[in-house]
């Protein structure tokens, strides 16, 4: 399952997810050593191919690769011949000829990482494609919840915000339901996809009902720059209705944790105070992201298609 890359949580079995998480917890210990580097991927090359800008995810992958001793090369459209109208597939083939051991791809259009993966012998890791999936974000979220709650099975997870346009929401819905959690989504009707129940979640228009008994409260980033206010009347109204602050958090369980994929629009999805301290675990999510990506690179890098590694 994991042999050909990591494109979507939807493709994974529960056992794959458990293996990745188990590996990630061991990688976290490596990150706590004085020498935060192991020779595992020495002599291997990882290409970070980011068509859409993302400092945080790219840096996380870069650190993860370097902690495993891989050579990490960053390739982003502004600095490449993509501006010279080279097609995406030509770029992919060019990269493949450089013989990388893994390619990490982010693209603003859903499905592009898969398209490129079909052209490459190296495994592809999807670092976010359009509104489709962002698998490593969901996996690091699982890891953070396991760390906090000791389990996923039987928990209630409420995801709040622009569910329809969020790859983080989609990957997390697959991830948490596969691991046995009850997933709820809440947001303004314009932000809830029409048939979201097909994904095995319960949809709520009332935040209070959605939060009732929740163990995990996950606020999504509102893409202010992208939407231009088309999906809700005003930022202030969104914040008043769906923004999480300590008062609204009382609807959830007493020991509920608050998560956010970052970067936070302070005072919009989360109150300033919640963005800063517990029960929010935002910086733990970032910390775990490096360990989780080390795990994915360890399990995948160098597993060329058609090689003896297909097991």
């Amino acid at each position: 399952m994991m042999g050909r890359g990591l494109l979507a949580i939807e493709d994974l079995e529960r056992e794959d997810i458990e293996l990745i998480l188990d590996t990630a917890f061991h990688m976290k210990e490596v990150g706590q050593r004085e020498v935060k580097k192991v020779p595992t991927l020495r002599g291997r090359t990882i290409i970070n191919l980011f068509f859409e800008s993302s400092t945080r995810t790219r840096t996380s992958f870069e650190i993860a690769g370097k902690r495993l001793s891989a050579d990490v090369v960053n390739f982003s459209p502004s600095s490449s011949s993509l501006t010279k109208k080279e097609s995406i597939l030509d770029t992919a083939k060019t990269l493949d000829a450089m013989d990388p051991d893994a390619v990490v791809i982010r693209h603003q259009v859903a499905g592009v990482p898969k398209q490129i993966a079909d052209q490459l012998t190296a495994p592809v890791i999807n670092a976010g494609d359009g509104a489709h999936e962002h698998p490593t974000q969901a996996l690091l979220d699982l890891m953070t919840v396991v760390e906090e709650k000791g389990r996923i099975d039987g928990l209630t997870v409420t995801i709040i915000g622009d569910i329809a346009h969020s790859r983080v929401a989609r990957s997390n819905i697959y991830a948490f339901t596969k691991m046995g959690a009850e997933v709820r989504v809440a947001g303004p009707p314009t932000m809830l996809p029409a048939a979201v129940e097909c994904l095995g979640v319960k949809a709520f228009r009332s935040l209070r009902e959605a939060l009732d008994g929740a163990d995990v409260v996950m606020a999504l980033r509102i893409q202010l720059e992208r939407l231009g206010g088309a999906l809700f009347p005003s930022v202030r109204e969104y914040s008043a209705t769906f923004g999480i602050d300590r008062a609204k958090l009382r609807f959830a369980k007493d020991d509920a944790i608050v998560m956010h994929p970052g970067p936070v629009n302070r005072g919009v999805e989360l109150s300033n105070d919640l963005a800063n301290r517990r029960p929010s675990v935002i910086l733990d999510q970032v910390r775990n992201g490096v360990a989780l990506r080390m795990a994915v690179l360890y399990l995948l890098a160098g597993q060329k298609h058609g090689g003896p590694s297909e097991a």
Partner: protein
Amino acid sequence: MASDPPIPSAHASAEGPSAGIVLDDLAIQRALTRIAHEIVERNDEPARLYLVGIPNGGVPLARLIAQNLREIAGVDVTVGVLDTTLYRDDLLARGVRPRLRKTEMPSAVDDRSVILVDDVASTGRTIRAAMDALMDFGRPRTVQVVALVDRGHRELPIRIDYVGKNIPTRRGDHVELRARPGGEGMEVVLMQGASGGSS
């Protein structure tokens, strides 16, 4: 400390065409007691000792040696766990990646007399990986090696300082420390002709 990785149990192990017990629990206990005495003999500052078990088999053995050292020399020796997987030289050639195991080094190794503890020594590659891993944790004063069983077939210039028992084997044999079936204690079994014996 409760979550040491388990050594294989007799029921879970694939029994080869002929599996024989080469060390029973009593023999293992005696070997570890003797090794503990040898360690005290050869290390004049027992307070500097630091036992490091290599998972999975080396971990319970390191704890038993520590217990012996407490009784013999009255010292509480630090016990660590060091997984060597990320330092292996055959990782990328193998395809499917081995599962990682716990590493837990409770204190710094600088200026300590580190004793690596493995269950079965053979090619020396695990010991090589363990030494590289150890050096990333600091600069020990000395590094010595315990193996409950040395089955030969060394491929690297590595010497085992404390051997429980030398057991001549063929390359295809498999030697394994495991939990004794249906009871307390451990035993070492030799499975002849089974494949995949490298330690």
